[in-house]
């Protein structure tokens, strides 16, 4: 429970940290546009190279970015494999004929189950998965002895491979950029930046200040509520609640025994907080001055100009190439 980190902000100091959150958000948006406009593999590769150069300049280690990418690893691989298997355009590069018979299918299945079982003992879950995957393919393609009941041919086409790489690069760039934003920006600054950037939405009656206030209070109270939840779990554990034991019916009661106190405490808390806020003259929707001033620095103008030019350039390349 204590290890949940919201927003993944990691304190540090570099130009990425010093940038105005508004600029970070706008720059991120411009770069996203650029990344979606780019349709040449080499430009996309260049963009990723650019980011790889940017990281050490901004004093962000690759490891931290990898932690940002990790939860999405499965999605990345899935997209990659999907493109390779089902995109049949361009020149045929290679084929791999898989023949299923009871024996090799059982071996393949066994390998996979073994991996499921053994993965908790290794730190290299992903690498070991690739190894097992390769082994399964080898078994299925080479080891056909008796009674094959089906075949499947994997065909890899040039276009498919290139497009798969292209999509992979695009996703990596998007996730990396977002990770850089959350690593280098305090949640409160991000919130404030978002409020300012979305201010034009007021025209269509979206109250950005109120949304920002809600996010702000949520950020303030998430640690408190997690702490509370933890105490409730311990209090019920003291009454013999054991989450590893018990029948289904007991489990339901156990969960209720956590949820009811959680709800009651949260409501009580929000009621008291609302009173305290009103007592300090908070009126929803009334104009307020702000303690946190965002200061636009020369750096911000430069960054904005560079990202804007990059977006324009990528649109230019798209049209002219």
């Amino acid at each position, binding site marked *: 429970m204590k290890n949940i980190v919201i927003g993944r902000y990691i304190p540090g100091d570099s130009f990425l940290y010093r940038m105005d959150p508004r600029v970070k958000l706008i720059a991120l948006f411009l770069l996203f546009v650029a990344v979606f406009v780019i349709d040449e593999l080499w430009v996309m590769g260049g963009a990723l190279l650019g980011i790889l150069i940017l990281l050490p300049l901004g004093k962000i280690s690759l490891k931290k970015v990898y932690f940002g990418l990790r939860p999405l690893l499965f999605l990345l691989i899935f997209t990659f494999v999907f493109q390779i298997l089902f995109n049949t355009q361009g020149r045929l590069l290679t084929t791999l004929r898989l023949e299923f018979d009871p024996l090799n299918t059982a071996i393949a299945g066994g390998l996979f189950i073994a991996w499921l079982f053994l993965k908790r003992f290794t730190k290299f879950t992903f690498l070991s998965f690739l190894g097992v995957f390769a082994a399964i393919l080898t078994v299925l393609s080479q080891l056909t002895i008796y009674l094959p009941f089906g075949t499947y041919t994997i065909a890899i086409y040039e276009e498919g491979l290139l497009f798969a790489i292209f999509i992979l690069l695009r996703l990596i760039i998007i996730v990396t950029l977002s990770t850089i934003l959350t690593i280098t920006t305090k949640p409160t600054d991000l919130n404030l930046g978002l409020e300012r950037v979305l201010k034009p939405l007021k025209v269509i009656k979206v109250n950005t200040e109120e949304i920002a206030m809600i996010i702000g209070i949520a950020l303030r109270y998430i640690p*408190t509520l997690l702490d509370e939840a933890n105490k409730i779990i311990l209090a019920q554990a003291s009454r013999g609640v054991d989450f590893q034991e018990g029948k289904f019916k007991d489990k339901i009661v156990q969960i209720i025994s956590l949820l009811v106190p959680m709800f009651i405490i949260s409501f009580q808390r929000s009621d008291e907080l609302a009173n305290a806020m009103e007592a300090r003259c908070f009126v929803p929707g009334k104009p307020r001055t702000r303690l946190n001033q965002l200061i636009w620095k020369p750096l911000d103008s430069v960054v904005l100009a560079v990202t804007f030019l990059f977006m324009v350039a990528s649109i230019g390349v798209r049209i002219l190439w």
Partner: protein
Amino acid sequence: MSILTLKDVFFSYGKTPAIQNLSLAVEAGEWVTIVGPNGSGKSTLTKLIIGLLAAKSGEIRVNDLTLSESTVQKIREKIGIIFQNPDNQFVGVTVKDDIAFGLENLSVPYPEMIERIDTYAKAVGMDEYLEKEPSQLSGGQKQRVAIAGTLAMHPDIIIFDEATSMLDPEGRHAMMAIMEDLKRQGKTILSITHDLREALRCDRVVVMHEGTILKSGEPSVILRDEALLKQARLTLLEPFKYMNELSSQKRLTDQWEAILWESALTL
């Protein structure tokens, strides 16, 4: 004219009356302590005064303003409240943000805001904690931040609503010291508590029970009245046991009355 006047105020939650025909007047610069057991209606009173609850009948006045829907915001600007639970009134992500919260609501301009934050953080001894988050503070420190946030809004009256009940002795003593300091500066204080030790230094004690005022008067009189305190489910403080015993034997001299009063102030 009194700075805060309640006249025949009545309030009930559903059918159970919480406040019954209560009248009270607080003078400018006065320190009034309302004492009473849990459920005597003390805290309902605070909510009525700043219009978080609406009285069913009666009148509440702050200076020359009568509390109504149109004046409630003006009245809230004049009254600051420190609530019981330190965690449920800390709005900001840091100490600085929290002190600023009320100022932002009052649309205080930025440079003045910075100035007031500094002044009042110093006044409560929290000036070295401005960048700290609430999880890094003790309950007593959070309450001090709440006081700074309230004082920074320059209220006419400051209400302490059981503000010490969740603190350890050190936190309680620090809060009491701040209240005495405020009194010296001429601030009007309304403090609500069930801890009679907190009523020793005020100007007037009001004993509440079941939504009404049983009696009010100087601490030296009220705090010695064992029958009255018993009726309000409160217990006599240690020094007054000696005082009452000596007095009942007609052996209480002025000197010993003074000594025992002094000893009460050490509690």
